[in-house]
């Protein structure tokens, strides 16, 4: 802004309404904070959109809003989550993530130092995932009309030729693979909520899964029917959705489902089922029985899949139930979460 503006006071400054009003303060915030954090040739051109070349073929697009509270949590923050989550939704199509957009809705009073930290983490997460944040938007709302910061990211990626992963593709007999332990993210978040606060070393599993996916596609090819990241609603919601969309059921083996002991303990404490708790760096893959072992081996060879496991299979079921043989020896179903996830007394 060519010196016609006091510098952003990152250490003590706060967002106020002028940072969202289309004036000089907003331009300064965007160029002085976001462009610096995300720095790339597309943003530098300063257009309301960014252009890129594509080779043709099949692309995917996705979006997610991030409203996590607290904004900073063990293992990440809203910014890393906003990159990983959207990269993962692209990767779940077997696609290579290319470009992200990022929209910020900021409550007035938000500390610039926090915003900078979050933006820098996003930039770093994007760089390590090999994606570029090429376009964005900033809105500021009055105090009491947001919760500090919301981020929306959208992303596009390119699908390898011939691959078509989709929720209706599961077939009876397919195997259910999970890339690692369940519930780490949700429990890490809950441990920092004031009304629940408990002490734990659990950290969020937030991670970009595109490289793991690439290795799985390499190993399993067309034997991979679909992949999905079990985020909100956990594994239970993901499998119930797929069951409905593919018109079948699942039978899981509880013993095979990896859950860290401290996550299990925190779930007991709060009366929650780890199958309902959110993950941000895990995927479920439904694969044909023929490639199950090869895909599982590829997963276990990857740092983000070392705890991968085969946990069940698709069965014919007109009612789309996700059944589970309990580790105790009985049977049950794994249902959707009913309503919100609330700690229970009974």
């Amino acid at each position, binding site marked *: 802004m060519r010196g016609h503006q006091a510098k952003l006071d990152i250490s003590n400054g706060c967002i106020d309404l002028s940072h969202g009003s289309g004036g000089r303060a907003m331009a300064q915030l965007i160029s002085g904070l976001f462009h610096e954090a995300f720095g790339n040739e597309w943003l530098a051109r300063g257009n309301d959109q960014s252009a890129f070349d594509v080779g043709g073929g099949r692309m995917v697009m996705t979006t997610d809003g991030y409203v996590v509270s607290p904004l900073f949590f063990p293992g990440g923050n809203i910014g890393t989550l906003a990159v990983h989550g959207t990269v993962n939704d692209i990767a779940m199509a077997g696609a290579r993530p290319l470009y992200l957009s990022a929209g910020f809705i900021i409550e007035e009073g938000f500390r610039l130092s926090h915003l900078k930290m979050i933006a820098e983490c996003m930039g770093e997460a994007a760089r390590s995932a090999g994606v570029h944040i090429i376009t964005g938007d900033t809105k500021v709302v009055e105090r009491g009309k947001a919760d500090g910061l919301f981020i929306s990211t959208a992303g596009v990626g390119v699908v390898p030729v011939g691959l078509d992963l989709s929720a209706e593709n599961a077939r009876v007999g397919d195997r259910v693979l999970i890339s690692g332990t369940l519930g780490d993210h949700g429990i890490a978040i809950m441990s920092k909520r004031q009304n629940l606060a408990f002490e734990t070393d659990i950290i969020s599993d937030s991670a970009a899964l595109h490289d793991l996916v690439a290795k799985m596609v390499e190993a399993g090819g067309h034997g991979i029917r679909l992949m999905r990241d079990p985020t909100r609603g956990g594994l239970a919601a993901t499998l119930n959705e797929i069951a409905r969309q593919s018109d079948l059921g699942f039978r899981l083996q509880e013993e095979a489902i990896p859950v860290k002991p401290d996550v299990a303990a925190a779930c007991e404490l709060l009366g929650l089922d780890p199958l309902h708790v959110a993950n941000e760096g895990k995927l479920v893959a439904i694969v044909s029985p023929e490639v199950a072992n090869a895909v599982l081996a590829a997963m276990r060879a990857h740092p983000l899949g070392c705890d991968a496991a085969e946990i069940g299979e698709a069965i014919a079921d007109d009612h789309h139930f996700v059944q589970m043989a309990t580790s105790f020896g009985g049977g049950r179903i794994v249902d959707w979460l009913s309503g919100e996830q609330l700690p229970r*007394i009974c």
Partner: protein
Amino acid sequence: MCLAIPAAVTKILPDEMAVVSIDGVGKEISVALIEDLAVGDYVIIHVGYALTKIDPEEARRTLDLLRELSVE
């Protein structure tokens, strides 16, 4: 009813409070309902309160009995 789980006492705090651990998960609870508590004791906790100490001897006996029943 009444979700409650066993936890090991790791620290006694003032004001009838204590820290317990459940497989490494720490939680501050009230022990206002318990007498003669020591670090290392297991208690049953419910809504942030210890309801009672677990008797380790009785627990062992119950398990022994279960094993016995199961091999019969």
